[in-house]
């Protein structure tokens, strides 16, 4: 039986574990499209709309050229507009903008499952809010984008049912215990964030704040995926991989180094997750015997020599020359794990070699997916991976605060720091024990004055954004004011 490496070791592994598939770059707008599609259970077949907004591929349209130019600028603001509607994700604000584009890699449906989970308090209020905002009728459309596209959906337009792919037996990332609770407490941190943002924004949306609400929920969704991937390989579900925020403009060397070191844990965590998952997959297929034996060195060498590395069809097909390199590369990895130095059993050696091969085979490695998503929401600084650091931009900080502090409550900055550390692993210096926490992950010490400056910088951004009030005696109170 033909053995397809990517299909078995990546796609099937992901299907059983994460459910969403981090193998192609996911932009926030992709996630928005996927999440909104899952919530509305619809997507639009609107060829006239797509023709009008994409003059490059469709020079002829009945719509005025200037209007087309404006539409294109607005709906392609996130750079995910292509010749075919079903490959595009618009900078959307209405159900009529949702496409069947699968570039969200099922992250939308994964988040949707968390939002629909009823733990005794019903579904997330974010569902009702988003459903209402996205389904405003022609008279109600309150934002400029959906009003501007209103004439494009007069004819040749149909809303189609979206097919959800979540199996009845949830993947391990969404597993539920006997009491009906998520096994992974991180999912509650994610869900709580959605609920909190929705509570703040529940009465808004009719007059200009709709777009802000959509943006906040999508940024939170992206942060949630990043958070989940970051903690996917964490050995302790109660403990978060640290994210040391570097908020000052010119961080000290110790702060910069610690922030970069904490970022490097993302790669380690994801790598650990995939090694474990591939190990489980290999054991399963070995037990099932579908592809023959995986016991001896000869068996495994035989598999490596004969396996197909990527599916033979699909848009992301690779060249023959590139495919030809995979077999010797895999053998090289395998042999190195089998060598006297590593001294692993043939199956363990293959597990590790397969995990190393994943990054070569998929379009973007899972780490690269996390990296690009984190950068696009302003959690990570731009620049090469080796110099990345965590630095939340004001828009993201706003979302984090709104996802954390419930309406009508006022927290001290210390309380905020404790919550962020516990639920997200975010550190910025207000706790006083950051160095102890970082030391557990082998991260270097940050000097005390840098931590103070960092806290000060974060408090200043919150203050300037209207989320914090600073008192002369050093107390900073954070709240979401109406």
């Amino acid at each position, binding site marked *: 039986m033909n053995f397809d490496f990517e299909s078995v070791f990546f796609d099937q592994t992901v299907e059983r574990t994460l459910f969403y598939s981090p193998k192609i770059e996911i932009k926030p707008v992709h996630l928005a499209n996927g999440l909104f599609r899952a919530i509305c259970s619809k997507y639009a077949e609107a060829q006239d709309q797509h023709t009008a907004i994409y003059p490059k591929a469709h020079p002829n349209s009945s719509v005025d050229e200037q209007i087309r130019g*404006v539409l294109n600028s*607005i709906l392609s603001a996130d750079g995910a507009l292509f010749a075919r509607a079903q490959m595009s994700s618009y900078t959307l604000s209405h159900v009529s903008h949702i496409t069947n584009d699968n570039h969200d890699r099922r992250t939308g449906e994964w988040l949707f499952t968390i939002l629909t989970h009823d733990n005794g308090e019903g579904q997330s209020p974010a569902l009702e809010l988003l459903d209402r905002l996205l389904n405003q009728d022609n008279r109600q459309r309150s*934002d400029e984008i959906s009003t501007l596209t209103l004439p494009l959906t*007069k004819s040749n337009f149909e809303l189609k049912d979206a097919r959800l792919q979540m199996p009845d037996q949830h993947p391990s990332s969404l597993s539920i215990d006997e009491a009906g609770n998520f096994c992974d407490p991180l999912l509650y941190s994610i869900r709580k964030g959605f609920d909190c943002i929705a509570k703040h924004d529940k009465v808004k949306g009719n*007059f200009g704040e709709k777009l802000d609400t959509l943006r906040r929920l*999508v940024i939170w969704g992206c942060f949630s995926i990043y958070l989940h991937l970051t903690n996917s390989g964490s050995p302790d579900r109660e403990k978060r991989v640290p994210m040391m925020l570097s908020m000052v403009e010119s961080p000290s060397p110790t702060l910069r180094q610690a922030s970069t070191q904490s970022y490097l844990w993302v790669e380690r965590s994801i790598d650990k997750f995939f090694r474990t998952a591939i190990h489980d997959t290999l054991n399963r297929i070995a037990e099932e015997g579908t592809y023959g034996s995986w016991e001896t060195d000869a068996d495994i060498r035989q598999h490596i020599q004969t396996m197909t590395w990527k599916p033979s069809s699909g848009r992301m097909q690779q060249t023959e020359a590139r495919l030809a390199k995979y077999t010797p590369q895999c053998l090289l990895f395998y042999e190195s794990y089998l060598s006297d130095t590593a001294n692993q059993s043939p199956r363990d050696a293959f597990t590790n070699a397969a995990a190393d091969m994943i990054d070569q085979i998929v379009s973007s490695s899972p780490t690269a997916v996390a990296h690009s998503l984190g950068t696009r929401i*302003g959690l990570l600084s731009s620049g090469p991976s080796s110099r990345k650091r965590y630095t939340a931009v004001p828009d993201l900080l706003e979302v984090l605060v709104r996802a954390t502090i419930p309406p009508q409550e006022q927290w001290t900055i210390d309380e905020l720091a404790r919550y962020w550390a516990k639920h997200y692993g975010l550190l910025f210096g207000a706790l006083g024990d950051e160095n102890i926490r970082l030391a557990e992950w082998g991260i270097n010490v940050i000097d005390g004055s840098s931590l103070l400056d960092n806290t000060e910088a974060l408090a200043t951004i919150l203050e300037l954004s*209207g989320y914090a009030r600073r008192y*002369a005696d050093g107390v900073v109170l954070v709240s979401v004011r109406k």
Partner: protein
Amino acid sequence: MKTLPLFEDLAEFYNGRNAVAERVETSKLQYMHIPTALDTVIETWVTQKFDVILTGNPGDGKTHLISILQGKGSLLSAYVEKDASQRDTESILQVWQRKRQENVPFVLAINHAPLRNLAAKAKVYPNLEHLVNIPEEIDNCVYYNTPLESKLQRTIVVDLSQREIITPTIVKGIADRLCKQITSTRCNDCPPRKCPVEYNAEALSSDKILHNLVAILTLVARRGFHTTMRDLIGLIAYILTGDKPCAVRWQPIKNEDGRVPTFEDYVYYNLLFKGRSRLFDAIRQTFDPANYSEPDSDAKLWAGAIRDGWLIPEPVVIAPSSLEELKILKRRYFFEHQHDTDKLLQHTLPTTEYEFGTLIKGEFDDPSQVESLIGLINNLYAPLPVHQRADQNYRLRLWNSHRYSVGNRPGYFAMRSIPSDDLTIYRPKANPQIAQAMEIRQDHVLLAVQDWEPGDPSLRIDWPIYQTLMSADYGSPIEVQPFHILRRLDLFLRSLGPEAGSSRHIENIEWSDHQHRTLVSIRINRTNQSYEGVRHP
């Protein structure tokens, strides 16, 4: 020479021991006290059995004021808590509750954060439950449209952080007290008639020179800097003495290659731009006459042609031989020459700074100022050549933008707008209860809906936001403007949404491509689902 203890006294006011009321002997405290209406008003409140809370930032003079009133015996009938910030909240509340029952007025000085803490805990104390309204009452010390009724029972909150210290009376009061110490004895260390401390004291005894000093400090205050009493006393102490006794004044300056200091090094108009404190930093950042040009007087000063009109004729003015000397002369001219300071500032200050001043002072009619502000806001989001700014001043567009990734916005759109007539300007005023007691800082105005009440849409037009709007008007693109200013504007524009009405049969959407400075207007018929037209302004 001033006696050493006297110099030390003065120096201690500058960043030293005398700057903190808790550490100073009562005699010195009383000597430095500048009586204001606040003293009398507090005495009256106590007589009328009101509880009085003095709050504010450290250095605002809470403890100082209470100590003075205690010294005068004005608070004998009250229970006084001079430094409540250092005391346990529960014990303060217990005493307060007891004093309430005994009908003894309670007077306390307390910083903001512990006061909020105290308010939160007060709800479980019978008769003191009303104190939970303290945070609201702090905000209500200043009102804009109509004053709000107090929810406190026989309790008055005075937030000293809102008090304007930079008034001619206070500045003159402090200068007089400090100068008096100097003019009462003669210096034996400096050459005859060459003691800079005596010179400075003589200068700061002049009303005209003090007026010019207040003019600069007012510019600093207008930019939003909160000067505390401690800052102000420290500043005047420093510009009098240069933080150096005359006995060592003329020794070579160590960090300047052993240069022997000159008289000009210690003269107040130079020291004003040399000191070390938040206030000195703010002065340097705001206005130094040496750095701004006034073509007429500058040319004459450079030529040594201004011989008359000097308030202090010595030393005789001669033509400067270098740019450095001209700068010093410009400072002296600003402070010591007979001229109309307001007019001089009008010629000297950058337009933005001067116009902000006219807005704060309300020198033009408010409807015109509203239109001007609306024009500036529209122009930030939709920068257009001047000839295309047809109705930019008359309708405030509710600009918005949208993208899910971070990064520069592709452009801004607006479907709703507010006519300028729906907006007005409010200026901060002191709550009637405390209006007699103090002047309120005037460093902003409120651009808000008509009949504004707290919670209604409003935009605080302060120096940072005004500066941003003006810089956009001069051509700075929106991408380079500070995020927090854009966020404040965003919040204001969003909050105006409900004021702009609901959906219309025909909608007009404006799209500003700010990078190319173009504006497109598209009309959409909701009922027919059609485009009704497109036009450029």
